[in-house]
């Protein structure tokens, strides 16, 4: 777990600080330096792309954008999912049954189609990308949270709070929610990679982040086309993407083991 967290932090730091260290900017086209492989000349550590733009800076920018999209999208699905699941689990009974029925039916929707339609309908609004991705993922979160809430509900401290007259919303937010922290953290860590892949898939279709902004997904997509002529354009962003995804996954797994162990005590 520590290794994954460490790797991620390093990448994040690099993404934030990196561009300041480089003399190049992400916009600067340089028609004399098209498609240079990674080199020290001109500080093109990752080489340049087909418009002569420095790939190191663009990759760092891409990482920022990708992480931002993923984290925000996960938070969106977290907020929706936790609220929904906690309410359903706590209130229970009929309301719970209806709410979960709704979730079950939503599972039936071919969501990716709706994401595409959304992106097409509202023209790749940057904000909308988060919302759209967040909207796919909240279902799992809601289910898990509901399950947890159901079992937490029966615990003594909740009874105590109820007996002393604490209002229901208060109980949900101040007593139950903190105990969900563990499971929620695990799921967010595992949702982020999903969100990243969805964003890269949208980039592939031309519906993702728009130029001159870029994301890892967009960089990878551009790199695939240049696979043979300028392989660094694919290898570098793809490796970074893979490392980030794997790190989040390992981190999530480790966290899950950790919280499971705690639970079993």
């Amino acid at each position, binding site marked *: 777990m520590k290794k994954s967290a460490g790797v991620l932090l390093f990448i994040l730091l690099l993404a934030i600080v990196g561009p300041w260290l480089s003399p190049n900017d992400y916009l600067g086209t340089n028609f004399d330096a098209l498609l240079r492989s990674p080199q020290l000349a001109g500080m093109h550590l990752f080489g340049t792309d087909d418009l002569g733009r420095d790939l190191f800076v663009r990759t760092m920018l891409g990482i920022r954008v990708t992480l931002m999209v993923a984290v925000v999208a996960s938070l969106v699905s977290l907020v929706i999912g936790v609220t929904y699941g906690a309410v359903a689990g706590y209130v229970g009974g009929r309301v719970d049954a209806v709410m979960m029925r709704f979730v079950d039916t939503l599972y039936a929707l071919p969501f990716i189609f709706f994401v595409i339609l959304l992106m097409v309908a509202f023209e*790749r609004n940057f904000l909308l990308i988060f919302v759209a991705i967040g909207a796919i993922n909240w279902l799992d979160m809601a289910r898990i949270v509901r399950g947890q809430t159901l079992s937490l509900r029966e615990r003594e401290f909740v009874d105590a709070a109820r007996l002393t007259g604490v209002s229901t919303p208060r109980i949900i937010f101040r007593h139950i929610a903190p105990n969900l922290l563990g499971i929620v953290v695990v799921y967010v860590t595992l949702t982020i990679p999903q969100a990243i892949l969805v964003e890269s898939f949208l980039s592939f279709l031309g519906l993702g982040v728009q130029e001159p902004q870029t994301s890892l997904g967009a960089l990878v997509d551009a790199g695939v086309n240049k696979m043979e002529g300028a392989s660094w354009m694919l290898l570098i962003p793809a490796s970074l993407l893979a490392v980030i995804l794997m790190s989040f996954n390992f981190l999530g797994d480790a966290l899950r083991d950790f919280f499971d162990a705690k639970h079993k005590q």
Partner: protein
Amino acid sequence: MKLIRILLLTVLLVGIAACGGSGDDKDRANVLHRGLAIDPETLDAHKARSIQAADILRDAGEGLVSYSASGELTPGVAESWEVSEDGLTYTFHLRDNAKWSNGDAVIAEHFVFSVQRLINPETAAFYAQLLGDVAGLEAVDDRTLVITLERPTPYLLSLLTHPATFPMHPGSLAEHGDDFARPGTLLSNGAYVLAAWVPGSVLKLTRNELYWNNAATAIDEVQHHVLTQEMTELARYRAGEIDITASVPPDSFQQVKAELGDQLHVAPYLGVYYYGYNLTRPPFKDNPELRQALSMAIDRELLVEKITGRGESVAYSWVPPGVDNYEPTVLSYAPLTQAERNNIARTLYKSAGYSEDNPLQLELRYNTSDTQQRVALAIQSMWRDALGVETTLINEEFQVLLANMRDREITQVFRSSWIGDYNDAHTFLSVMQSDSAANMPAYASEEYDSLMQRAASQVDLDRRRLYLEEAERVMLADHPAIPIYFYVSKHLVSPRVAGWGDSVLDYHYSQHLSFKAVE
């Protein structure tokens, strides 16, 4: 133990796979495999508008006139014709062995029927205006067709190679109604018949034995594979599964040129890539200096060499080179160096009221595509470096961009292009007439319109040409749009295919192709 069994099985499977191969030793027989960028939207020649539909229709049909393998106009269904002195009456004599694929003879009445359907508003044909100058069409007898024109239209013969003017079989339409254009029912009077169509996958055309020139057709079957991703098409070509590609991906062009140079065919294509101005609104309304400044600040030579890099040629005129009987007018600043152009551009920019402290802020719209994006990014950069213009790039889907261009509410500069429908300057110059639906910038010049009208009424080809060239000069000087480069057609053609000729309209009839004997 189980593991070992699984491993053995895998090795066996892989072995089978390796032997099976990808098909280059298969029974290739006499089948030509061509790439097609998208499915035709329909094979009803009147309702079709895409280039892809036209390509298929040209294999599966024939008009009065056709093009030969070397790109010359050649008799099609009509074996000969005469033109009257005043250029207003054409008399066509049809062959007596022209047949439909069901055995019926192709007669003059079929052309009349077809044109009537074309111009009938109920059909809502896109190319209804193609024969706009035609006053009347008459089938004097089964073998004689007379076309009368309102104006002398020297390019009429070129028009008559267009699939929208192909004959139609009245019996077939009566029997099948709107479903007549499907595989199995679509009748053909051309070299091939539509045998099968798997949407999204492939269209199969088989030899039409009853075609009058069937003896000259070498290839028995043509398969047009629908391959929307250029990279996929290239992969299949390199794997030997496709013989002729529809295009070459821009990202791989240099590599393809280096590795497959002699199989790559790049030829000028009648199309102009341009950035149009919205002339109905500021900042470009009534501001010719600004429009010219922006046009001059673009380094077209650099663009063509480094950004598009597929052999395109720079465009300082509206009409591409290679058009019959025409010499395009060129913008005055074409021969200058870019540095000189930038200087003049800066002066014009200033006199339009802009400067470093008061930069022009504009929105550039283009449709989602790697090529458009690269060009846009490059031009954004050029405008910034030369003039200090702040350009916001807005990348829209094709449908959205079109709608915006038409509305003329929010567009300022937009990317567009025009591909010629026939080999005459008119197809390009008519776009800028004030009443043209394709006139995206909303250019309206009385002088231009009147020059075009005068050209249209000329019988003498040389005088007509002078009027057209003058019209182009007038229009270019007004800068309603910025011509950037002229298109090229790019195809990879397998070494086993013979008979491929360069065509400025990018017409490549399958009936002219054959396979070289392989030792």
